């Protein structure tokens, strides 16, 4: 094997996100979206530059199968962030009940079950509940609906919007689906090969894209706006 040049997965990227708003990150596989996500929550350390998050942060991963511990019950999984913060037991139980209701899961039915007993959409709601229970200021959502059916996807997107309004949450929403990103985001950054090719307010970027790459991505979106009026 020859010596390999280190790869710059993310290269000189700068952006800010306002409190209570959603920053959408789009780009094709391998463009560096998830690397940014991991740097924001501190799972990766940037080799140069800095990530500043004011307040608490957490992440929801794409794969609701891989991100929940298969040996823990739902209430144990959701309680973990609070246990780690030494919250009292009775308060934890109250919080679990509350948060499960928010993601429309029944506490009595769910609490002692294991992740494998749930469908993909339910698991993603469990993953979201686990993050929401400690009300982080910033939530990174890394392709949170990409593996779900469109009807389940719609439910999760609505839920994320409702919770954002209610708790003034700040989202970094990552997806390769430009339609979903437009629906969710206030500001959108388009990434290619580790760099931003364009960052603009959502309506501006979708209405009059500046870079050729954004135009190309928009052109291949399988859209059917004319289909339903």
């Amino acid at each position: 094997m020859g010596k390999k040049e280190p790869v710059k997965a993310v290269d000189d990227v700068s952006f800010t996100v306002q409190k209570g708003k959603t920053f959408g990150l789009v780009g094709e596989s391998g463009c560096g979206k998830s690397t940014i996500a991991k740097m924001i929550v501190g799972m990766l350390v940037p080799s140069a530059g800095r990530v500043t998050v004011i307040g608490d942060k957490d992440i929801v991963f794409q794969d609701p199968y891989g991100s929940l511990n298969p040996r823990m019950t739902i209430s144990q999984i959701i309680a973990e962030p609070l246990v780690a913060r030494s919250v009292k037991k009775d308060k934890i139980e109250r919080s679990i009940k509350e948060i499960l209701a928010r993601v429309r899961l029944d506490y009595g039915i769910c609490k002692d079950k294991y992740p494998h007993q749930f469908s993909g959409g339910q698991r993603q709601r469990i993953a979201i509940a686990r993050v929401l229970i400690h009300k982080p200021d910033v939530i990174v959502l890394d392709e949170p609906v990409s593996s779900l059916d469109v009807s389940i996807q719609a439910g999760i997107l609505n839920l994320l919007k409702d919770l954002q309004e209610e708790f003034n949450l700040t989202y970094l929403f990552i997806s390769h689906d430009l339609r979903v990103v437009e629906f969710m985001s206030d500001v959108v950054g388009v990434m290619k090969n580790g760099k931003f090719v364009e960052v603009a307010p959502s309506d501006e970027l979708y209405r009059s894209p500046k870079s050729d790459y954004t135009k190309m991505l928009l052109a291949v979106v399988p859209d059917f706006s004319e289909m339903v009026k």
Partner: protein
Amino acid sequence: MNPMQDKILEVKNLTLTVRNKTVVRDVSFELFPGQITALVGESGSGKTLTGLSLLRLFPNEAICKNGCIMFANRNIFDLSSEEMRKIRGNRISMVFQEPFTAMNPVMCVGRQISETIEAHQKYLRKDMLKRLVELVELVCLSRDVLSKYPHELSGGMRQRALLAMMIACNPEILILDEPTTALDVSVQKEILELIDTIRKQRNLSVLFITHDFSVVNMIADSVCVMKNGKIVEKGTKKSVLYNSQHEYTRNLIACIPRLGDTRRRLPVG
């Protein structure tokens, strides 16, 4: 759809049960040469199992309670295992959703394609090489992929290689189970265009299984919408997508965000 053209396969009142649970109920549809028929539905709607039954590849616990699948004047359920083997991969073949697991990780691409061909046809070594090059070039890959292993290919390239493998024996019917779900949109578009080109070139009949109506809109000629094991609506693409008579179909289409969407919330069925 051209009604004058003879159907190539007909599924009639197919009903399948798995451990006493009916998962496919009274499903009927037809496939035509050169036509793409989409089978659309959410997870668990029975679409994959319906596709698998065309190859009689459903799980052991599944029992066909009723109905038949007519192909070349024979009911697929009446064929012997030997006869069925001659059909699979040869006259009817299937591309699965996950291009990672559908390929053998320890065998190079060329060997995998030739294995499929050798199962049904005899070729001399030099002719085989020629055939392999022809096939990978048909799916717009360069001939070097023949000596590569699946892990060396991107998702889009793997899906192309799988397509090459599945059309290697010139099948009459190709079943595609969510072939582009795992791919980026720009790659998805390329693969869909490739599928469209191949079916036109070879007058191939395609059963396209998906949950994504926007993909259906791009590629299908006719559409069957499945829910809980049943076909709730079927017809030409135009009638099902643009003038649906069924609430379930309309809901499924409406809950997808669209470019320039001004809705604050999406309808949930």
